[in-house]
């Protein structure tokens, strides 16, 4: 049961850190509000566009290639879901699991090569 407490305490620390991480900006910005001046004028609140009057909406649909990278990221990031446990348990799993992981990684590499060939990795 003690280990259970240890476990809980460790995550309690994480929670406290989260709290602190949020607290600092809040405190600092609140403090700043008391200190800083407030002299609004229309120019200050226009969007910066190198000194030109901003024209049309800037919330544009961004380039598709960002999505493609996001897709690649998702796929390879999830790969690590399998790699981490495998690496941790490597001692018990042994050579056969290494071979299996080899197959797994080779197939994924094939995916990478595919993306490469299809010019997904090309920026511009």
């Amino acid at each position, binding site marked *: 049961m003690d280990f259970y*407490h*240890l476990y809980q*305490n*460790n*995550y*309690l*620390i*994480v929670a406290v*850190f*989260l*709290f*602190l*991480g*949020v607290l*600092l*900006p809040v405190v*600092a*910005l609140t*403090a*700043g*509000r008391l*200190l*800083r*001046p*407030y*002299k609004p004028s229309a120019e*200050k*609140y*226009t*969007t*910066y*566009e*190198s000194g030109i009057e*901003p024209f049309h909406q*800037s*919330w*544009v649909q*961004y*380039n598709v290639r*960002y999505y493609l*990278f*996001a897709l*690649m*990221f998702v796929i*390879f*990031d999830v790969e*690590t879901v399998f*790699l*981490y446990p495998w*690496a941790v348990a*490597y*001692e018990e799993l042994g050579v056969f699991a290494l071979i299996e*992981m080899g197959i797994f990684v080779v197939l*994924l*590499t094939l995916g*990478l090569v595919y993306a*490469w060939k299809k010019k997904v*990795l*090309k*920026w511009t």
Partner: protein
Amino acid sequence: MMEELLYAQPGWTHVAIFFALGAALLVTVLGFVTYAILAERKVLGFMQMRTGPNRVGGRFGLLQTVADVFKLLIKEDTIPKLADRPLFILAPVIAFAPAFMVLATIPFSENMQFADLGVGLLYYVAVSGISTIGILMGGWASNNKYSLLGGMRAAAQMISYEIPLVISVIGVILFAGSLNLNDIVRGQENIAYIFLTPIGFFVFLISSIAELNRTPFDLPEAESELVAGYHVEYSGFRWAFFMLTEYVYLFAMASLTTVLFLGGWNPIPFLDFIPGMLWFGVKFSIVVFFMIWIRGTLPRLRADQLMSFAWKVLLPLALLNIFVSAAVKELFL
């Protein structure tokens, strides 16, 4: 005392104590950031054969950053009329909080660690990923073309380099057989993992620089192209928090590098009379210096080079590293 505390039933006392300790760390980190910025400017100045800041706070400009902070604190805070206000305000917080959270699990010395998580490394990787959302959010909420582009670029870069970063540490996990950072450090009592998995270290180091958006990978903030990237509309202390995030991450990443590859608090043989904390500090400082050094030396990459470098060089290397590491483990350990 700490042991007992940790094994006891959690309660509000715990919260209080942890809060105090966390706050102490926070102060330390802020101190580090203050002087890291100064150090960076100094080192850069030195490399570029100039003096760097030297007016405020004595001969070495010791209070330069402190003054900067105060300047930021009393600067007027503007939020553009067109911006998405709630997201605009939320963004710096979301960027900063994870940066501080990851510090919870770093073992600075044998008994100087806050949360000894079983999945420490995974925790680090997972939580640090959240910052990207903050940056993206900031870029989007500003409703500014520059910042949107900067935010998108930052996000693209961060996710691209996250992959090699995450995979390059698998060698370390293989050797340590654990995701617990303490275990990893203990695994390096005899030999630091940098020697066992040099490719991994190489990939990790480069990816971490890219993750930190530092030169030569600082495209999201490319002043000459995108003004200031995703935080172009931010001013005052809100902007400061993005900067703070960056430097806290520098702190965290340097610590992680130390822990994973440089042996953490483990001393170099025969020098174990020096306390572990100090060893850690030394190794940590070397990493930080290295990063500043790189910034001073290398030019910025082109956007397309940046992306293809991650996917076409680092990722295959990282994948290769898995099997090299496994082979090393099979053959030599």
